[in-house]
């Protein structure tokens, strides 16, 4: 059971004395403090002689009340006197919250800052692309500086270890396309076109697009978090002082790995999606597995493969650039790492989809429909 501090008011000769009772500790003061705050009648004395133990929080409450009412503190024990003197020295009226603008101004200011930030981001992003290209140029001129080991390591992280998850995802997507496509085409008696649908969609669009999204989630985020943490721990600054360019040592291998791995992963994804479609066609549509694969060769024009393979490295570049760029923007605290990682993924996927729309129009215009 908790004991609460309390008070009574004694009036004598037109003078009011607030007499405190019970221990004045952080654990007992809650009620007393609230009651004292509501006590607005004039008070001349605060009597502590009936109070028990005291800590700085009790001392603060007593001092604040006495100060507010211009009252004298009487009957304080030695300990209470010492603590009250300590908190009196620490009293202040400084704000304890950062200053905030009124709501309307804050909203407008927020929008304005967002616009400026967006503009800066675009400029900086292009600048980052330029810095990367310059670093690449420097490496071409000094091939000895080429970060082979880092590149191979990134090949493994970005490419090889992504195979299972991308394979599984593509297989399932192939099943969905074939199954849903067949359900619609059946209404026209054109079930056989399921093969065209699956093959062309997988090779031309979905294989590469889904892979890019998966790579943005797996590798783009990892790049941002890695580089961001290295920035916080001053590893990147340390590199610069030793004369190692962080762009050459960290960014170039990651971007190259993504650019080179994306076509392979995208093609792999398309192949697995077609296999998924063939499996479901065999099971539910009565099209034999091998017939499905043989038909693919006839109905999918070769330029569909090219469309996929041309888009893939561009998507890889965008995703890796977004990841590395956001990672290098981290400064301050650990919250930034999370924030920038999220931004890397969102920005990467968004730009991939925008570019994909451009590519779709472009390839159709040049006759690769």
């Amino acid at each position, binding site marked *: *059971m*908790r004991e*609460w501090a309390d008070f009574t008011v004694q009036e004598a000769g037109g003078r009011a004395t607030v007499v405190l009772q019970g221990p004045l*500790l*952080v*654990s*007992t*003061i*809650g*009620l007393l*403090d*609230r*009651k004292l*705050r*509501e006590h607005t009648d004039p008070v001349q004395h605060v009597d502590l002689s009936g109070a028990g*133990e005291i*800590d*700085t*929080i009790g001392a*603060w*409450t007593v001092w*604040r009340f006495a100060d507010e009412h211009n009252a004298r503190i009487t009957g304080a024990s030695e300990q209470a006197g*010492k*603590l009250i003197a*300590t*908190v009196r*020295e*620490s*009293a*202040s009226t*400084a*704000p*304890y*919250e*950062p*200053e905030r603008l009124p709501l309307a101004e804050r909203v407008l200011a927020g929008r304005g800052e967002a616009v400026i930030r967006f503009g800066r981001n675009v400029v900086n992003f292009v600048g980052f692309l330029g810095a990367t290209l310059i670093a690449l140029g420097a490496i071409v001129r000094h091939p000895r500086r080429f970060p082979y080991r880092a590149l191979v390591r990134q090949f493994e992280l970005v490419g090889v270890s992504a195979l299972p998850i991308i394979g599984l995802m593509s297989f399932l997507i192939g099943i969905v396309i074939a199954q849903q496509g067949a359900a619609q085409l059946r209404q026209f008696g054109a079930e056989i076109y399921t093969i065209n649908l699956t093959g062309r969609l997988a090779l031309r669009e979905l294989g590469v697009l889904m892979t890019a999204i998966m790579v943005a989630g797996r590798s783009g985020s990892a790049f941002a978090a890695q580089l961001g943490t290295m920035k916080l721990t001053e590893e990147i600054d340390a590199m610069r002082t030793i004369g190692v360019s962080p762009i050459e040592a960290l960014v170039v291998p990651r971007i190259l790995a993504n650019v080179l791995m994306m076509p392979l992963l995208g093609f792999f994804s398309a192949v697995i999606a077609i296999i998924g479609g063939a499996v479901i066609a065999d099971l539910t549509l009565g099209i034999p597995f091998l017939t499905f694969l043989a038909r693919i060769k006839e109905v999918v024009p070769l330029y569909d493969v090219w469309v996929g393979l041309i888009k893939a490295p561009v998507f890889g570049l965008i995703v890796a650039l977004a990841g590395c760029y956001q990672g290098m923007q981290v400064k*301050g*605290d*650990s*919250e930034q790492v999370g924030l920038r990682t999220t931004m890397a993924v969102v920005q990467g996927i968004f730009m991939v989809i925008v570019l994909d729309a451009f590519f779709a129009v472009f390839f159709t215009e040049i006759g690769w429909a």
Partner: protein
Amino acid sequence: MSADDDELREEVLDEARSDVVEAFDGRYPIEIAGLKNTFGDQVVHEDLSLKVERGEILGVVGGSGTGKSVLMRSIIGLQIPDAGEIRVFGKNTIGAEPDEESAVRSRWGVLFQGGALFSTLTVAENVEVPLKQFYPELDPQLRHEIARYKVIMTGLPEEAAAKYPSELSGGMRKRAGLARALALDPELLFLDEPTAGLDPIGAAAFDELTRNLQNTLGLTVFLITHDLDTLYAICDRVAVLADGQVIAVGTIPELLKLDHPWIQEYFNGPRSRAAQVSLARGAGKAMDKSGGGKA
């Protein structure tokens, strides 16, 4: 008035935790016996025993890797030991019920090496976290006021209360961490290398602050340090960790009488002599001052 009173009382009781522990009046707030800690094959502590007396500043020293921080983490329950008994305020902390554990937690404050401030909160909000956690019935206004005077008490400028940790220097972050550790007026204070990374002036000021707070608030302080100046200036006793045990506890003169090679090297090295000299000089100056005042 009295109806209001009852309403207020009910509201407060609604929010407050039901049980709170009494202040500790035994002799040893921390008692450790037979403590064993291992990481894989590596034995950090083996049969370690230590008693901390109430109201003292106990310095804990030892070479790197002797498990000073692990010892502190064991006491405050962040590291579960393989064997042994740890009693804080007379209560066994290993395998305690969550309720009991939180009752003990409300009576100690911990300052981690880097301050360990919550980076998304301002300094004042950091100090308010333990208050809100353990005493939700406190009026928000009182909580703000407490946070503000604690911040100033630890020697920070008053405008620091409204700042975020990333806007503070390393030394200021430590002070802010100390303000949070002191938020509940704890009886027991753990400091993990409080002066590491501070400049000598800042370190001396921090030592003085620790000493003053200990005097005013009657704290028991468990202080891990490498700083010989701190040991000489403010520690009542020093515990030496080596070979997985506390090999000696006592005042520095007592330790110097022992014939252990590590202790001899530690306290008789060039740095230790320098610390002694500077302490003697500081004491001399203080005496001059007080003498001048009297005359």
